[in-house]
């Protein structure tokens, strides 16, 4: 079959065997003449695809595809567009300094692009002002596990370990909608007698699969985790031998959870003590158990501490670093893992190095052929960067790749005003997203099946994205765009546009770092259907990659995992008389991220046509709202409308809105986690009312 042949033509990263463009599961798929079929050889999906995957190819031929650069809304040639951008950058930095030009990246970009974007910012623009939308995604889990384990690899074990577990606790994740084929692993676990515990304010599709659902009050996940840990210790499930041999800090954590006895936690979380105890029993009696967190637990102004509390629970039960057990976070964006490793973060250099570490600066500067002193220091985090745009102290120009913050940033109305205040906004995208529509210059780029490169999935497995279709005429890849700009800024020779050349440089830059890719090649990825980092270059005798990095030691200086005491506090904005309900947000199955891609695919808009507001029947009754009515949700930051969806499986004090449309993020609270700088997407105070008859959407 031609698929097999195409799969074999690997070295050049061309061929039909590639991966889905959407989430971090990175399902294997064949793309042949615009037709998609699932790959059986990729363990993450093992032949499964959700509707997003099956229909992904429709965007390749979408009439909404951008095929020519736009300058102030009018089509221009690439030379005109890039000349204009380069000239404006030169002018702005001459007048306001290098930090007046900022870069915003995305967690969907390939490793090559993410790497090159970070390098472009520091070397071509010499700006410290670069961050990316992954800050809104993985930063809390990253900060917490770096602190606990010394390494942030989402799942530090193969995803297939889940099927072999006896118990899984999933805190704040709705995988049945966000990455449906992941559920296959959970189903396999359950049919083998394993049990699933889900923590969520809503009775989601995932919660419905669970043996036990803890329906927590929004913003109280941290208290719940502390309560579970308290019970685990009280009920004798602490693995004291493991704690003594492989961790530090248990004593302080044990003391700190003394104040979170179950009955107190019940009052804060609304989760009955008996259910907490049952959850702990399920985990504690399992031979192999896995604790997972998702954005529901992480996207809070205390997200780092919440993840830390779940990590403390996993460590107390003796799970991490034990084959078949562990703690993991379920990464969201397509390259949410790789995208957070190679330097598009404000405080980071390739290989998961820290930008303020002199040794890291020296290593990377050598690879880049520059003086370490010329490397900028740490810059602003994502929301702080967006918030500063166009202000006297902030950047005057922004280059944006692979993101749509007008829809996806918290307090999005304010973010749109900041973007509007810029002297120059440049957006590279393949459709006219809401943010691209505001841009001075729009640069049409290639998309997934039209390009090659590597993606690192939720397991830390580096995968090969192969070019399976020719891009439409007039479109350039992001690497070509960066080279075009670099040439005009006088350093084109440092920015090759060929993905494999960039990857080889990335390997050198990452060598010796936490996320060491130096032993990974396109050929190896193809031959092994993916390679787990860290994988150092060991010359003649190739390193096998590291499916389970913590079996012998953790990546901390002393090799021990650290338990860190943390304490609960209420949401940054709690409910009150004026705004008496919690508002939370999340995904639906048919859409991805800001919806810029999926809202342009017909079967997906048919499946899920518009923004809705999910509310409990008791609340609907009180408001006189019937299913299908238009309702308006307000917070201190804005208002948004949607169609009422009345559902008894949500808490009566909570509203849910999906974030794939402009809407809910007009309301969300940009309060930031002090450590990860994650905004509090998952809870704010809101009010709801029925729209008057005949009233039109604003």
């Amino acid at each position, binding site marked *: 079959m031609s698929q097999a042949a195409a799969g074999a033509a690997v070295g050049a990263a061309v061929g039909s065997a590639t991966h889905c463009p959407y989430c971090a599961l990175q399902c294997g798929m064949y793309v042949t003449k615009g037709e998609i079929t699932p790959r059986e050889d990729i363990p993450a999906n093992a032949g499964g695809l959700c*509707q997003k995957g*099956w229909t992904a190819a429709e965007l390749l031929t979408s009439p909404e595809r951008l095929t020519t650069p736009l300058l102030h809304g009018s089509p221009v040639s690439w030379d005109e567009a890039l000349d204009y951008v380069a000239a404006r950058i030169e002018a702005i930095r001459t007048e306001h300094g290098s930090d007046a030009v900022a870069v915003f990246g995305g967690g969907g970009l390939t490793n090559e692009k993410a790497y090159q974007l970070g390098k472009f910012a520091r070397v071509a623009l010499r700006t410290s002002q670069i961050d990316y939308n992954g800050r809104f995604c993985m930063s809390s889990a990253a900060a917490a596990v770096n602190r606990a384990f010394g390494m942030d690899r989402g799942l530090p074990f193969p995803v297939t370990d889940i099927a072999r577990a006896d118990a899984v606790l999933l805190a704040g994740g709705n995988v049945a909608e966000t990455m449906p084929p992941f559920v296959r692993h959970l*189903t396999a676990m359950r049919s083998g007698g394993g049990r699933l515990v889900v923590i969520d304010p809503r009775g989601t599709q995932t919660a419905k699969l669970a043996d036990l659902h803890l329906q927590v009050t929004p913003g109280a996940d941290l208290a719940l985790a502390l309560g579970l840990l308290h019970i685990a210790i009280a009920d004798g499930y602490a693995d004291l031998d493991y704690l003594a041999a492989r961790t530090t800090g248990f004593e302080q954590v044990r003391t700190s959870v*003394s104040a979170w006895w179950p009955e107190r936690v019940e009052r804060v*979380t609304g989760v009955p003590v008996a259910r907490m105890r049952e959850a702990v029993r399920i985990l504690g009696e399992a031979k192999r158990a896995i604790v997972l967190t998702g954005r529901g637990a992480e996207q809070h102004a205390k997200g780092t501490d919440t993840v830390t509390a779940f990590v403390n629970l996993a460590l107390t039960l003796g799970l991490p670093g034990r084959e078949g057990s562990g703690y993991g976070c379920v990464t969201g964006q397509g390259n949410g893992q790789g995208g957070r490793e190679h330097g598009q973060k404000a405080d980071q250099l390739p290989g998961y190095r820290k930008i303020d570490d002199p040794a890291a600066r020296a290593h990377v500067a050598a690879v880049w052929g520059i003086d370490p002193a010329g490397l900028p220091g740490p810059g602003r985090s994502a929301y702080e960067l967006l918030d500063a745009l166009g202000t006297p102290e902030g950047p005057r120009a922004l280059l944006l790749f692979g993101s749509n913050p007008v829809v996806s940033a918290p307090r999005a109305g304010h973010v749109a005003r900041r973007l509007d205040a810029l002297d120059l906004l440049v957006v590279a995208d393949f459709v006219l997203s809401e943010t691209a529509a505001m841009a001075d210059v729009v640069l049409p780029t290639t998309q997934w099946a039209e390009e090659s490169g590597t993606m690192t999935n939720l397991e830390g497995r580096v995968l090969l994205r192969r070019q399976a279709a020719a891009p439409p005429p007039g479109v350039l890849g992001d690497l070509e765009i960066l080279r075009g700009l670099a040439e005009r800024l006088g350093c084109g020779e440092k920015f090759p546009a060929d993905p494999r050349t960039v990857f080889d440089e990335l390997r050198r830059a990452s060598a010796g770092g936490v996320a060491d890719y130096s032993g990974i090649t396109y050929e190896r990825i193809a031959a092994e259907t993916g390679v787990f980092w860290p994988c150092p270059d060991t010359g003649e005798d190739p390193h096998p990659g590291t499916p389970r990095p913590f079996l012998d030691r953790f990546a901390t200086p002393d090799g021990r995992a650290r338990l860190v005491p943390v304490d609960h506090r209420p949401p940054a904005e709690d409910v009150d008389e004026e705004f008496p309900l919690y508002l939370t947000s999340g995904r639906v199955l048919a859409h991805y991220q800001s919806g810029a891609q999926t809202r342009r695919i017909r079967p997906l808009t048919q499946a899920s046509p518009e923004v809705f507001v999910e509310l409990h029947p008791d609340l609907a009754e009180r408001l006189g709202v019937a299913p299908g009515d238009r309702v308006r949700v307000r917070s201190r930051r804005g208002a948004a409308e949607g169609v009422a969806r009345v559902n008894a499986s949500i808490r009566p004090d909570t509203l849910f809105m999906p974030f794939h449309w402009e809407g809910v993020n007009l309301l969300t609270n940009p309060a930031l986690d002090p450590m990860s700088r994650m905004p509090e997407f998952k809870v704010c105070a809101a009010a709801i009312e029925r729209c008057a008859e005949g009233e039109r959407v604003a």
Partner: protein
Amino acid sequence: MRLVVVGNGMAGARLVSEVRARDKDVKITVFGAEAWQPYNRVLLSNVVAGTSSPDQVRLLDPRWYAEHDVTARLGVAVTAIDRDCRTVVAADGTREPYDVLVIATGSEAVVPPIPGVERATAFRTLDDCDRIRGAAASARSAVVIGGGLLGIEAARGLAGRGVPVTLLHLAGHLMERQLDAEAGLILRETLGALGVAVRTGVTVSAIRERHVELADGELIEAGLVVLACGVRPVVGLARDAGLEVERGIVVDDELRTDDPSIFAIGECAQHAGRVYGLVAPGWEQASVVADLVTGADKNARYRGSRLVTRLKAKSVELAAMGETQLGEDEAEIVRFSHRHRGTYRKLVIRDGRLIGAILLGETSAVGTLTQLFDRGGPLPGDRTGLLFPDLGPVGAAVAGNPTRMPDSARVCQCNNVTKGQIRACWESGARDVEAVAAATRATTGCGSCRDAVEGIVGWLCEQEGVSA
């Protein structure tokens, strides 16, 4: 500023850490009469029951004080407050000057004036727990005097250790301040089944060598006697210093006594006529005082607490909150009682808000009700769901049955495939799941709908057989 805290129990220790969290510079000295690090009194019943170990009840690590620059004088009682010199005098003769003084001396166990009472063990401190656990190891019978929350927890804990227990209570029913008579009765029967014989309406006249004697002369065998007859605020220090004291040390909404530089919090304080015997109010008070003395929030005020009582006793689920004793003429009452199963649920509602509740037996509603009570949130018109949260919506079973679900029902969520589409696919020739999957992509996502699709296809095939 120099802050002195007298009392290192749950309220005092909490205050110290809250102040330090807000302000790195305040000079803090805390006196604790017990030599222990502060510990969580709430967990003492668990220690007696053996469900928490003594080393799990510590609230602060020994190193905490040094790391946070707090002077801790543990095992040193304060004997006097010299308000003129703004100084406290300790039992060891040392004097500690203060700018702000917080009294958190807590309360002490009430010891009733019964002959032989010295043979009984109070149940208040970690030392008491040690004594009770030690005695329980060899005792062949135990009597607990006092059928309030603590007494019941102690009795249940001892019964769990295999000691036959008799629980003696003066009032007509258990926990008479939190429960109505019917709940008290059902609780008594529940405890009876767990090895705690409950006697209500009885008065103890003496504690003998191996027995407890009742007023009517009856003798009850008791190898161990535990006193749980309530607590009283420790106010001597405040009274001697001339502060206004009624049942507790009288404080205003800032938790200030009539001396503006002296605050009182926790079980020794009396706010708006109320003295609280639970932890939560003390912690709320500590937070207000920390806000005020550090200036973190000069408008912080304490407005009283809503009380939720949760019994911590294995196999006895009980929650009681607010006004539980009101009758139909005073409030809207919703009740479900099933004495045979040990279940009792009662809601007390006024103006559409929950002002009280009792949940005994199964308590899956407790989280929802506690939060409705705490927030004063509006209740649904139909109160049934509040008492029976696990009753699913009517019709759910029908939707799960492939033969009865409507054609528009979505069977495969991942690929948005309805029952109607599967039927259409069957009508055009598909006879198994694989054929349906190939045509509709149903089952190819998460795979959880495989059974449902199989059921629909099987049912259609069956129907075909029937009609053929």
